[in-house]
């Protein structure tokens, strides 16, 4: 009976199918358990490395004499992750003590070996280690990775170059930062900040001028990192010549960041620009440099068509250092435009909530 049951092709198909599925499911479960076990081992090794090396790193950073435990080949990767983490979180003498420890442990040699590894992560770890050790011997290799590799590994290489020698890195890194539009802006900003204005000089301004126009707004937002003088020269020039609302708005943000009081005339000329984005940024810029003569304009802007312009104007008015609460209340009671009055009332209440002593 069983023989004829299993002779049926459909039954056979169902049994084979179920059997294969059951086998695959069990094999997958086995894989999951094995994987979990391996992960567990890896975590355990990392934990042991942390336990053994954390006190050593802490004492070493504090400049205390330490006895070095042995660094086995299996412990190299988790140790380097830890050492680089410490490097990132320290400054000054503590960081340099940690670098000395790295030299004592021969990290330079290990990192150079790892630089040729197949795993991208291992290579990145090597690059970042050489950066922290300020080892120049692999400069060309790392610069090559920064220039050729458009992915995140390129960004890591650029970061390492900046650490090794910011002055030498600037001509390599600044054009890359301008060109690689897909590198997240907050990371590019961190690169430029670490380079320092003294090394960036006019490189960023030149990079802006050479970049396609659509990249300008993004780059103008970074330009303050190249130092006040270089940034101001570019921003003032653009404010005088540009028509593009996006570029103008970016320049106005830079004016506010740089606190450039000398651009006040240019800012005033943009307060009634057809684009509301430009008007808002002009009001924001004016807010930090306005004089008594700007008060009437700010009050006029309380009747702007755009809510943001009205709100930012109201905020600018309530925070003007030369106005008392009573002065602002008087302005409010004199307003005929309902929307402007609403904006000013809200801003008064907001200032009161933030600063209960405001009189």
């Amino acid at each position: 009976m069983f023989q004829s049951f299993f002779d049926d092709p459909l039954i056979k198909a169902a049994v084979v199918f179920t059997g294969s599925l059951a086998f695959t499911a069990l094999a997958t479960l086995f894989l999951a358990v094995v994987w979990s076990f391996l992960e567990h081992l890896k975590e355990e090794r990392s934990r042991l490395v942390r336990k053994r090396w954390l006190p050593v790193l802490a004492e070493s950073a504090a400049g205390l004499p330490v006895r070095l435990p042995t660094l086995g080949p299996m412990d190299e990767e988790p140790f380097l992750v830890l050492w680089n983490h410490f490097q990132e979180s320290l400054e000054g003498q503590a960081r340099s003590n940690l670098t000395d420890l790295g030299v004592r442990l021969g990290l330079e040699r290990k990192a150079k070996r790892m630089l040729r590894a197949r795993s991208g992560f291992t290579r990145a770890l090597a690059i970042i280690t050489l950066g922290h050790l300020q080892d120049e011997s692999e400069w060309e290799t790392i610069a090559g990775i920064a220039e050729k590799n458009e992915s995140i590994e390129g960004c890591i290489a650029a970061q390492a170059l900046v650490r090794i020698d910011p002055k030498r890195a600037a001509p390599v890194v600044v054009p890359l930062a301008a060109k690689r539009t897909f590198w997240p802006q907050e990371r590019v900003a961190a690169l430029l900040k670490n380079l320092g204005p003294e090394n960036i000089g006019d490189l960023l301004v030149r990079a802006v001028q050479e970049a396609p126009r659509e990249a300008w707004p993004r780059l103008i937002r970074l330009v303050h990192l190249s130092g006040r003088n270089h940034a101001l020269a570019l921003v003032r020039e653009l404010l005088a010549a540009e028509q593009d609302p996006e570029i103008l708005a970016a320049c106005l943000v830079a004016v506010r960041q740089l606190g450039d009081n000398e651009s006040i005339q240019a800012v005033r000329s943009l307060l009634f620009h057809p684009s509301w984005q430009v008007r808002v940024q002009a009001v924001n810029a004016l807010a930090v440099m306005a004089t008594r003569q700007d008060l009437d304009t700010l009050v006029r802007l309380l009747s702007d068509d755009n809510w943001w312009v009205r709100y930012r104007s109201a905020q600018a008015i309530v925070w003007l250092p030369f106005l008392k609460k009573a002065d602002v209340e008087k302005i409010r009671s004199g307003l005929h435009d309902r929307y402007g009055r609403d904006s000013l009332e809200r801003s008064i209440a907001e200032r009161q909530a933030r600063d209960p002593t405001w009189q």
Partner: protein
Amino acid sequence: MAVRIVTGLQYFFLAYTLAIGLAYLLLNLIALFAVRNYMGEQRYDIFLQTFSDFEPPISVLVPAYNEELTIESTVRSLLQLSYSNYEIIVINDGSTDNTLPLLIDKFGLLRIPESYSRKLETKPVRGFYLSTVYPNLKVIDKENGGKADALNAGLNAAMYPMFCSIDSDSILERNSLRRVIRPFLNDHRTVAAGGTVRIVNGSEVREGHLLRAGLPSKLLERFQIIEYLRAFLFGRIGWTPINCLMVLSGAFSLFRKDKVIEAGGYKTGTVGEDMELVVRLHRLLRSKGEQYRITFVPDPICWTEAPADLGTLRKQRIRWQRGLGESLALNLGLLFHPRGGLVGWVAFPFMVVFEFLGPLVEIAGYIFVTIGLVLGFVSYRIALLFFALAVGLGVLISVVSLLIEEISFHIYGEVREILGLFIAAILENFGYRQLISWWRLQGVLGSLLSRRAEWGQMKRLGNWARPA
């Protein structure tokens, strides 16, 4: 003729069961590669310095309706998020309990004159409050209009270019905003990103933050974890590489505000306002031929409570299915639209055929095969093959999901936990899945009858919200 119909139906149900199983298996396999890539990239993160001044500011919108049990803890945990510039806007949608007085009392709220840009129509706003203690906390008190209406009111008041909608019972990781903003920083075309929402039942939570992930003891909750891994996590990640993701959880998603306002905000009167918005964004951006990305952050960065009883689970699943139906019906123009791309030609039909009509076909299949077997018009051979397919593929997909979970996030890492989930993956095929399909079928019918939407309130234990 009748024989032909019966035979045809038998093969139809077999083919459908095979197709849906293989489709999910394929999505899970795509997810495997996508997650591996993602995890690889994340490893580099520890070495990359960032300059937080350049993080775009975010408005966090928290719609709340009768949330007096959890709202304080939620707001306190949101105030501790690690992000450089964000505001929290709680929208009290006409709660009838103490939600608003509690917020006023605990956070020193001060009523301020209402003035904001009303780009979206909402029910009247009754008051606008600002915290005197936490400068980035605001509360809007409005008349009851449903979750979508509350979110629209929050959108009107949001000051920043990005907004994050979260459920008031969501438990966020401290770095969740930093994680969910990443797709926007990496690709300027990104208009929306969903955060992964995980089940918190069985985990240890203190003061609104997760301390340790764990497995719940109840089988019903374990079933939901398996179901979650299979369909809601890896099933969705599978759609991301081809930019076909149609569902982002309302519990934690980040959007570009200008794009959402341009699309008309959240649609009121629907039960699945989060999904409807995402499908509408696809439809509108596709029809304009705009370059865009809707993406998913696979890290477990948001945790939420899963229903612990059948009654609540039933309501939840009916509501979800209705939401799906409404989202598809309201954006039918995307289906096979000439500019619809893979979303219009692959993901949308998939959603209609497998996700929306799936329960109908599945339940019909079970009834047809069972009755046929009893009455003799379906042979035991066909019945055996049908159940082997339905159960076997279900188990396989669940176990593959479990493997991906271990390879990637490794949340349930103990062998005991893996085995517990494996057993749940087998057992859920005998009753639970069919029950869920039955409830989803009720949801299908509900969406066809289109009853009015209301707040999808869930019976919560809220254990995690209690003070330590």
